[in-house]
């Protein structure tokens, strides 16, 4: 049983996490991951947990856990501690809403163009900031009028198909809220690429991964979502069908957060975790031979690749690079920032927006100064955020791959 709070004793106080923390580097309101994490944990008693206001500045980016050489689950400790604070107070309406992108998607999709128009109007954004403290500068996604599941209805299944010759090359696609309600074209591209590589794609039953709920400290609700996803996906995993997702946040939840942060640790959650792959991880790991056969069209462009902080936490490196490097003419620079600042829903909150912007300043300035054509990132919130603050187009690397494969 993995319990983050049992790793606090492994902290040697070396401050490597504090030195790498993107938020601590721009804000002294944040005491630092070590101070509010393993250090404060020694003062947290169940009957009298202290409130450490500084803790709310933690964005949950996970860099601290990643750089800790001693195995302290700093980020997980902090996320759980934040949730404890949340439990003891009333949830803001704003947090309730922004934690439920699936709900918002379902409500707004039928009236997509109206919803989009009103959300992009200045007066509406002013109102949202004043009433719900959603920063008027924060990029909000646009709703698609037809969800991915609607468009790919024929691929949606309730249970894994009977075993046959097909299941060897079968892939279960985890679209997440973004590829379903906000960017279904992206989802369709992902499916197309997989099919071109000889995979047969099915779409299992699923709901929002629940990460926004978790990030906002609403762990009970997050657990409900998690349990639902695990129950639906486990049969596919047991059949040996890999679960592939294009959003690095969703796949991290399935791989790690469900078990370690939400505490759902059993055979089902374990098999879902070990069967989940990030899109490029799947391509480079399981389809290496097929990828080798591919001929990429040249794409002359100067780009920055920004690996999302969530991707780093997968512990698989940056597999997209292995494919992007093969596209002739593509000049790739790596982002100088470990985190772009948005951290899911963190950056759209008005009280956090300045700190979030400052965290991302490094990448924004790098993009402007190096005069690149566009930016690439595997996470939707990163894409919207970087696009907003640089004015540049920001794509998922798979869109570039699709272009180089001549899938339009």
């Amino acid at each position, binding site marked *: 049983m993995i319990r983050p709070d*049992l790793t606090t004793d492994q902290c040697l106080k070396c401050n490597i996490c504090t030195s790498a923390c993107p938020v601590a580097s721009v804000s002294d309101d944040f005491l630092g991951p070590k101070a509010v994490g393993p250090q404060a944990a020694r*003062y947290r008693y169940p009957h009298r947990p202290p409130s450490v206001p500084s803790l709310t500045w933690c964005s949950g980016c996970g860099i601290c856990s990643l750089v800790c050489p001693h195995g302290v689950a700093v980020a997980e400790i902090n996320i759980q501690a934040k949730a404890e604070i949340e439990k003891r107070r009333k949830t803001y309406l704003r947090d309730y809403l922004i934690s439920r992108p699936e709900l918002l998607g379902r409500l707004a999709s039928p009236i997509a163009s109206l919803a989009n128009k009103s959300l992009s109007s200045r007066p509406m954004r002013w109102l949202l900031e004043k009433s719900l403290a959603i920063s008027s500068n924060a990029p909000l996604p646009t709703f698609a009028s037809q969800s991915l599941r609607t468009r790919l209805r024929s691929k949606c299944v309730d249970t894994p198909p009977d075993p046959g010759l097909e299941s060897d090359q079968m892939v279960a696609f985890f679209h997440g809220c973004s590829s379903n309600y906000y960017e279904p074209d992206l989802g369709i591209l992902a499916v197309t690429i997989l099919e071109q590589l000889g995979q047969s794609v099915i779409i299992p039953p699923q709901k929002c991964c629940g990460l926004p709920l978790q990030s906002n400290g609403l762990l009970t609700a997050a657990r409900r979502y998690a349990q639902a996803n695990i129950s639906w996906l486990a049969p596919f995993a047991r059949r040996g069908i890999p679960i592939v997702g294009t959003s690095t946040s969703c796949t991290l939840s399935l791989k790690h957060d469900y078990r370690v942060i939400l505490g759902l640790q059993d055979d089902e959650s374990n098999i879902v975790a070990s069967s989940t792959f990030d899109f490029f991880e799947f391509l480079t790991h399981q389809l290496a031979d097929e990828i080798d056969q591919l001929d990429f069209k040249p794409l002359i462009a100067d780009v920055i690749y920004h690996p999302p902080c969530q991707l780093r936490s997968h512990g698989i490196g940056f597999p997209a690079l292995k494919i992007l490097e093969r596209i002739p003419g593509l000049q790739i620079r790596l982002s100088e920032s470990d985190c772009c600042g948005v951290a899911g829903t963190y950056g759209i909150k008005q009280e956090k927006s300045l700190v979030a912007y400052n965290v991302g300043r490094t990448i924004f300035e790098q993009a402007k100064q190096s005069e690149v054509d566009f930016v690439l990132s595997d996470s939707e919130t990163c894409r919207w955020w970087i696009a907003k603050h640089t004015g540049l187009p920001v794509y998922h690397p798979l869109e570039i791959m699709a272009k180089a494969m001549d899938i339009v």
Partner: protein
Amino acid sequence: MPEISTQLLVIGGGVTGLGVAWDACLRGLKVVLIEQNDIGQGTSGRYHGVLHSGARYAISDPGSAKDCATENPIIRHIAPHTIEETGGFFVSTPADPIDYPDRWFAACHEHGVYVEEIPTDLALRTEPSINPRISRAFRVLDASLDSFELLQTLVVAIQRAGGQVWLRHRLEDLTLQGDAVVGAEVTNLTSGERITIRANYFVNAAGPWVRRIANLAGIDIPIALGKGAMIALASRPVHTIINRCRPPSDGDIIVPVGTVAVLGTTDVEVESPTELAIGQREIDFLLAQCEILLPELAKSRPLRAWAGIRPLYRSSGEGFGRTRGLPRGHVLLDHNDRDGVKGMASIFSGKLTTFRLMAEQAVDLVVEQIGVGLSCRTAEIPLDPERTQFFQLPKRFEEIATPDQTEREQIICECEWVNRSAIEEAIKSSSSLDLDDIRRKLRLGMGPCQAGFCGYRAAGIAYEVAPSPHTDGRLEAFLRARWRGLRPLGWGETLRQMEITRRIYVDLLHTPETQEPPQ
């Protein structure tokens, strides 16, 4: 040679001696107390932190049990700020005798010790780290007590009441006139000066040294020295004191106190009061025993190990060997009555929980012998009237951790949240610049990093406040003292912590090795 006169000279600045001095001051006596080291370096500073409910001794030592039961609420009244209301559990693990709990329960009732049986699942819900296979659970009124805090408060209280506390003053000899003790020869270890103290009465409260002191008056007290080892865990896996429900033995108690949890204890006879080294077998045994109570113990980091020495009265002339079986109640010897030597009494053994009662009985004897002094008031008068809150570590932490302060203090020891002005204050008001003294006062360097980071900072501050050529020596001595408690636990995480300290003090700072300890 300077000479002073007083009514009562107390030898020994542990909780017993300080308790006696405090009681005597309140009765209007003129008191001087001498202590050879700093406050808290002896057994009182090395104990495992329990304010006993008495339950532990209900069968093995009913006298102690009764005393603890009556004193427990009194200590809560007079020194609440030193106490955390952890409560205590007694649990029967699969390794414990099935018949013991009922007998023990009856004995508790008989001797006035509060005990209540609770469902095991309530115990497990309160403390999920306890062995899930417990068959029975009981709640008692144990609490955890910070002895450093208690000792410091006693010192201040004595001084406020007109008494004198002389630290770093060692007793060299006692002077007799006929069959009475009349004077003491004392060395001021800081200046080297010798002083004579004349007094009407002498109380020997020297703990493990009680026999040596008595010998100076030509008296012998057969004492066994029982060394008890303890291990502090870096954080608290439990927040209640957990005891095994069985005849008291080694390694059967876990005490959360402050930011750590203390695993205790062992009992090994030693020859001398300074034999404090802890062997590998003791450590392994202690951890193995405590693992029966906390199956996940291996996931906690043992922070440091130390030992305290109990003076135990060998009244029936038993030989060297097992000290576990010797009675543990306190002993008051009227040397006039016992040895024909007037003007002196020895008081020793017993529990920290009963220190006030021990002091009361001792000072009752003093008053009777010298014919002067009012009646005891220590049960009514709080030690520090301004501190009425029970020790609330989370609250203190919150006050410090809030970033929105206009006058924010600079934090020097990050693990234990010790700030710069407290350190400067302690240095200025101390007669020695020993960083270990500051540690005892403020908990500097007592956290997981064991002075790895704050050691250097404290040395720098010490130099700025009180420049001295001995600063490096003091830094090294500080590190050596911390290292001594880490070495017995030198594997796993602890060894890594030790290495990171070396990376800083050797690789980065090239701290010089001095051969002798600083003066």
